[in-house]
């Protein structure tokens, strides 16, 4: 509980501030902008971290994703291909890899093979280029793909080699399917597939999109793995003007779910060893979300520290501004200090008065700065689309910093004021 005396001293300190409203506001501005930018920077940092977690978290931190990568062709290949009528580009992960992982790697929950192919999907005369994902039913669960309507692919579909598919609403729009899509029949290349489910409009973004080889338009079509393998095979052809090209990638992706989180990195090393023996030409890439997350987090933290450091410079400038104005105020109010000393103020009273003034300026500045920070964050979010999160901790940090700025910037001027000789202070013109 503050004593009545202290309240009176506080009130008197505030009265001095009110005596010079314009100066008080201008002095405050430095802190307002400083705190505002600290809040905004912390919010952007927290937002980026949240986005990162969401993005990479979608991949599942217990998963290891291995993608086939087309190896770089030697320079002379292009000239030799032109002399041939056609050739097969054969690379990437093999069924053997999948089998070996299942059979030899310990501590694995499940291993999902994925085959991808670019196919034209038709609805009457409308068509789009889509990516056909041949996946096992567990794929949906592993990557948290939610079904908005209908159902996901089932083991029964696999057994029956059923021509069914699950699509995204983006594809439906592009093909002009507006009525209930469940039960609708699409033509993919020359085969008819019945839509059994539609995924909710929650597309993969950024890193996750790249890692899962999803396209940006969300026109993926998910079909049973066995249906594609048994009915279509793994070879795909493309041709134009009399020449043709074929690509044969047995598996475009293998998703390994590790049982124990602590074993993810170790398992990834073991798989890497296995694959590097099978693929000396390195036609695959391995993505360990857990590792990526750790790396990205590290980078993000460095970035956050840099952002806050830059924002803190403006806060420091604000503090110097307060100290500067207060020093000028001490000179200007020397006579007042002399009068107060003559009337009985002790040195500590003078120090308290000036510290009250600087701390009030900085706390008020801090509070206004928080509002400014909120506004800045809103503006940034609207104009850039970045994610920003204002955490209670950042508000606490900003307020603590502004109080600290007030006190430190006030100490020197206050001590100078208190050290004034009352007699010469009274004579000051």
């Amino acid at each position: 509980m503050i004593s009545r005396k202290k309240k009176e001293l506080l009130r008197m300190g505030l009265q001095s501030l009110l005596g010079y409203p314009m100066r008080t506001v201008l002095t405050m501005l430095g802190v307002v902008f400083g705190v505002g930018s600290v809040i905004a920077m912390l919010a952007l940092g927290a937002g980026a971290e949240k986005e990162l977690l969401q993005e990479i978290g979608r991949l599942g931190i217990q998963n290891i994703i291995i993608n086939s990568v087309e190896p770089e062709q030697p320079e002379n290949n292009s000239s030799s291909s032109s002399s041939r009528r056609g050739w097969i580009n054969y690379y990437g992960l093999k069924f053997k890899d999948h089998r070996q992982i299942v059979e030899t790697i310990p501590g694995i929950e499940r291993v999902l093979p994925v085959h991808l192919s670019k196919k034209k999907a038709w609805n009457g005369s409308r068509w789009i280029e889509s990516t056909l994902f041949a996946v096992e039913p567990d794929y949906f669960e592993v990557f948290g793909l939610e079904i908005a309507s209908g159902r996901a692919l089932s083991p029964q579909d696999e057994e029956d080699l059923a021509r069914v598919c699950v699509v995204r609403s983006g594809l439906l729009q592009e093909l002009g399917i507006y009525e209930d899509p469940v039960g609708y029949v699409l033509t993919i290349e020359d085969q008819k597939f019945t839509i059994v489910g539609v995924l909710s409009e929650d597309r993969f973004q950024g890193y996750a999109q790249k890692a899962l080889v999803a396209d940006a338009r969300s026109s993926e079509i998910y079909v049973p793995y066995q249906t594609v393998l048994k009915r279509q095979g793994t070879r795909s052809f493309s041709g134009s003007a009399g020449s043709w090209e074929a690509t044969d990638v047995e598996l475009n992706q293998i998703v390994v779910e590790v049982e124990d989180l602590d074993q993810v990195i170790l398992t990834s090393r073991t798989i890497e060893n296995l694959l590097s023996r099978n693929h000396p030409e390195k036609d695959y890439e391995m993505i360990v979300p857990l590792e990526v997350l750790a790396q990205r987090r590290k980078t993000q933290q460095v970035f956050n520290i840099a952002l806050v450091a830059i924002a803190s410079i403006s806060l420091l400038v604000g503090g110097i501004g307060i100290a500067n104005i207060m020093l000028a105020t001490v000179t200007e109010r020397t006579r007042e200090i002399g009068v107060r000393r003559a009337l009985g103020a002790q040195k500590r009273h003078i120090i308290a008065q000036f510290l009250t003034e600087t701390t009030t300026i900085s706390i008020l500045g801090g509070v206004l700065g928080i509002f400014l920070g909120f506004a800045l964050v809103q503006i940034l979010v609207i104009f850039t689309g970045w994610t920003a999160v204002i955490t209670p901790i950042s508000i606490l940090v900003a307020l603590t910093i502004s109080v600290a700025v007030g006190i430190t910037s006030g100490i020197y001027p206050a001590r100078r004021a208190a050290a004034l000789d009352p007699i010469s202070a009274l004579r000051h013109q």
Partner: protein
Amino acid sequence: MPQPIISLEGIHKYYGEVEPRLHVLKGIHLDVTQGEFVSIMGTSGSGKSTLLNLLGCLDVPTEGSYLLGGKDVSQQSDDELSRIRNEDIGFIFQSFQLIPQLTVLENVQVPLLYGESSIREKEEHCRSILDSVGLSHRLSHRPSQLSGGECQRVAIARSLVNDPLILLADEPTGNLDSKTGQEVLELMDSLHGEGRTIIMITHDQEVALRAQRQVRIHDGLVIEETS
């Protein structure tokens, strides 16, 4: 003979750290009894301002003793001197020394900030003092809105707020025209009439004669006392 409220014994004041030091007061002896109205006169450089600073506990003597209300105040700490100035001394300055951003009432309340009693407890007291100096209609005005005479009356009210042992007036009419000066002197007369002890520093012979006792200082020494 009543006990003196102020007793100065062999007061010397030197300025400067290195020889030759400036010797301003050269052995002042002065007693002031309760209820006296004393004027201290002297030319510029005679040491009267230094004496006023010592009497007001704004400074301490280099040598000699100063008893205020029977207590030796010549070698007190800075905080203790502040407390004495707050409780026992009422200052009236030539240039009023009011705080410009505060109102008349707040200016009068300033000494209360640094003492024991709170402003709220003494609010009525402050108002009645301002009433007694004829300023009850100016409570929320700021010094810049007042005339010189009114400012000095605020300063007098402020000096009275803690009911001090002595009132120290430094050229109280120096910044006023003669008519307003007369009004202020009349106010001081009436305070003396109420039994207050007043010490007034002036270079004006006519003003000095308002006091019941005149002390003349020259070159750091009391050279003449008349009453």
